[in-house]
């Protein structure tokens, strides 16, 4: 079981101040939880200020994965990093809302580029807010 999970490990790429995660597999619950802790460990290790999570390939987000994503955003925010979810498919957005999960407090962007702009803007305003 463990080796199986290991094979499916989702890569996290560091780019400047940000981490980029592209979820390319249909995740089962354990893999989703593993990704959550993996990202938090990576934030701690790298001091990243933002995390972009690309879910454009995900054809389905159910209540568990939705909860993992919004939990992820709150945890990262406590660690002083912002999370932006990018590329949600329209069918996924519709289903999430109908399911009753509106993911309050989660920032989203249409694509990677817009998500990156969002994070950069946030990083810059944080810098000026200090003075």
């Amino acid at each position, binding site marked *: 079981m463990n080796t*199986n999970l290991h094979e499916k490990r989702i890569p996290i790429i560091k780019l400047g101040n940000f981490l980029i995660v592209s979820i390319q597999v*249909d*995740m*089962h*619950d*354990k*893999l989703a939880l593993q990704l959550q802790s993996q990202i938090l460990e990576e934030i701690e290790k790298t001091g990243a200020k933002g995390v972009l999570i690309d879910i454009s390939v995900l*054809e*389905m*987000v*159910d*209540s*568990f994965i939705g*909860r993992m994503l919004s939990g992820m955003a709150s945890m990262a925010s406590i660690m002083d990093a912002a999370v932006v979810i990018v590329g949600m*498919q*329209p*069918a*996924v957005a*519709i*289903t999430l809302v*109908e*399911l*009753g*999960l509106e993911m309050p407090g989660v920032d989203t962007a249409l694509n990677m580029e817009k998500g990156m702009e969002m994070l950069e803007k946030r990083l810059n305003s944080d810098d000026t807010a200090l003075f």
Partner: protein
Amino acid sequence: MIELVSDSSWEILGKHQIESEDSIVKVRQLIRQHAKDLSMGIIDQTRITTAVSELLRNMYNYANGGIVLIESGMVDEKNALIVTCMDEGSGIDDIELAMSDGYTSGQGMGFGLPGSKRLVDDFEIHSKKDVGTTVRVMKWK
């Protein structure tokens, strides 16, 4: 296990055991494929897949898994995908409570059953103490 009567005209597309997280992933991919084969649109494919995903998780987390029966056929003159999830868990004490938004027995956020119901066209649940729970959902075009 509580078995439900199927219409004799329905076609069995598959019967699968849920016994691991991997089997959950596999079955929900199959559900999407069957929905696609019935030429449902992408949104309906996603709705039925997500609804079933919630039911499979319940079965796996609370009843050590179970059996999923996938059928297709006519329901009220509409071409439907019919998915029946059967487990041999301890059963649900208060179905009305379990069907209310926000109710959770612990791990979840309480959107599983009511959320799943909102995503499908027909939802039926039967539960008997120490016998198990069976949920049948249908999505039609």
